[in-house]
């Protein structure tokens, strides 16, 4: 890396990545913070949509099922970048039109809030499918037994279905978290200052492209490797009490 840096320009990598203003360290870390903030918010929103969507797809009426089918198919067939643009205009436009009708002045939504809303809707479609598959993996007898005991649907979901499906859902949910952290980079195209945008700003200003893109990449890598570790722990926790059937060769 050092050789690339010297080819890039005169300044050394350590000066450029320093924390205080001649260096861009603080900018990059602020970008990383925004990325984590948007990703966590969107992930939580997506999970909420996903839980409702999965139960709706499995136990809802025929109209609910079909509408949810349209939602998941549409969102998964159109590129995230296009969805981000459509939802970006739609959220801002519709909100301000509604406010204007009610006689309020238009508001400027914060980038983080819009980012969370957009990526949450996108994540919701994928979460729905992951959670639907996980719910299907719960043995039917468990659910029937709970119903026979007279549990209400909400209590049944809370005590039986959700805890039992956890183990099957965690790998898919871990993948979705890794996807959403990387999808936040797409918000750079519409101008939100998250890690990729912060990186490209630093690179374009200093003309030291390799150093900054490498540094940005390393930050993303730390985030994803750290998350993988955490999810591994969560999976072990969710699987506790399960019999280990086979130690696969893979």
């Amino acid at each position, binding site marked *: 890396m050092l050789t*690339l840096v010297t*080819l*890039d320009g005169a300044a050394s990598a350590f000066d450029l990545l320093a924390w205080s203003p001649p260096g861009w360290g603080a900018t990059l870390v602020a970008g990383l913070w925004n990325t984590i903030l948007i990703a966590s918010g969107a992930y939580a929103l997506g999970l909420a949509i996903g839980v409702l969507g999965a139960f709706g797809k499995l136990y809802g009426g*025929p*109209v609910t099922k*079909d*509408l949810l089918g349209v939602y998941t198919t*549409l969102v*998964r*067939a*159109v*590129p*995230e*970048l*296009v969805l981000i*643009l*459509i939802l970006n*205009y739609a959220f801002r436009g519709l909100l301000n039109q509604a406010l204007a009708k009610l006689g309020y002045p238009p508001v400027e939504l914060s980038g983080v809030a819009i980012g969370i809303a957009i990526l949450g809707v996108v994540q919701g479609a994928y979460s729905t499918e992951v959670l639907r598959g996980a719910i299907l993996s719960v043995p039917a007898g468990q659910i029937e037994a709970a119903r026979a005991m007279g549990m209400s649907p909400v209590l049944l979901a809370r005590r039986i279905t959700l805890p039992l499906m956890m183990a099957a859902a965690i790998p898919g949910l871990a993948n979705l978290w*890794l996807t959403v952290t*990387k*999808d*936040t*980079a*797409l918000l*750079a*195209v519409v101008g939100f200052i998250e890690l*990729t945008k912060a*990186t*490209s700003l630093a*690179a*374009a200003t200093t*003309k030291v*492209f*390799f150093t900054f*893109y*490498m540094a*940005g*990449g390393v930050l*993303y*890598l730390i985030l*994803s*490797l750290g998350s993988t570790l955490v999810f591994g722990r969560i999976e072990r926790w969710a699987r506790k009490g399960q019999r280990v059937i086979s130690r696969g*060769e*893979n």
Partner: protein
Amino acid sequence: MGDFLRPLHRRIMLAIALAIVGSCVWLLNWEWLPKYMPVILSGIWITAWMTVVTMVLGMVCAVLLGIAQAAGPVWLAWPAKAYCTVIRGTPLLLQLWLLYFGLGSFFPLFPEIRQSFLWPILRQAWPYAVLALTMSVAGYEGEVMRGAFKGVPHGQLEAAKAMGMPRFTAFRRIWLPQAVHRALPTIGGETVLQMKSTPLIATISIFDIYGVARRITQDTLIVYEPLLMLAVVYMTMAGIIVLFFRWLESRLPTRTA
């Protein structure tokens, strides 16, 4: 189709959907469409070949990465694994910009490169797009192929060995076809994902269908209609990919017990 439309609510929903499509066609402004048709078609063409070319090139690399991880010696398996981790752990947009802006600012420093016959190609954006997208496919599918190679029953390889097949022939005739067969449904899904990540190349000034739609918005100040066109184009392409892989899978013989 008859079964699909039998329930009353489906017919009502279809009527509502048709009404929405109809009102989109009649009420929105589509006057720009004929004028921009040639550019739109060339944009669709770029998106299509980008998807196909990078998918094919990437799969070739992915087979090598997969076999290196599944059966290679440590000094091959470890770098292959590291490569897949790095590609899968960083956003494609960052990789693309690293290659385009990074390499793009790096090459002109060398007079040898600037005077070589490759320079007219290296000055354009598409080689970087192809490189970034191919590297991304290789990283993701390398992981898929690793699992697929390991999933092939060991008895198959032992039988090939017992028949006296040379190692490469066994790989070509037994191991690779069975691994690809196993991975095919995943590869189909990943092809749709690859098609969905092609619009990123518009950020390095390539006029794929996404870039064309953004250009139309800039020229005419029409916002929603080009985006709707984009959604329709991408959904159609996703549908074609899904149908193609369904056809491909139906052509492969499977033994179901």
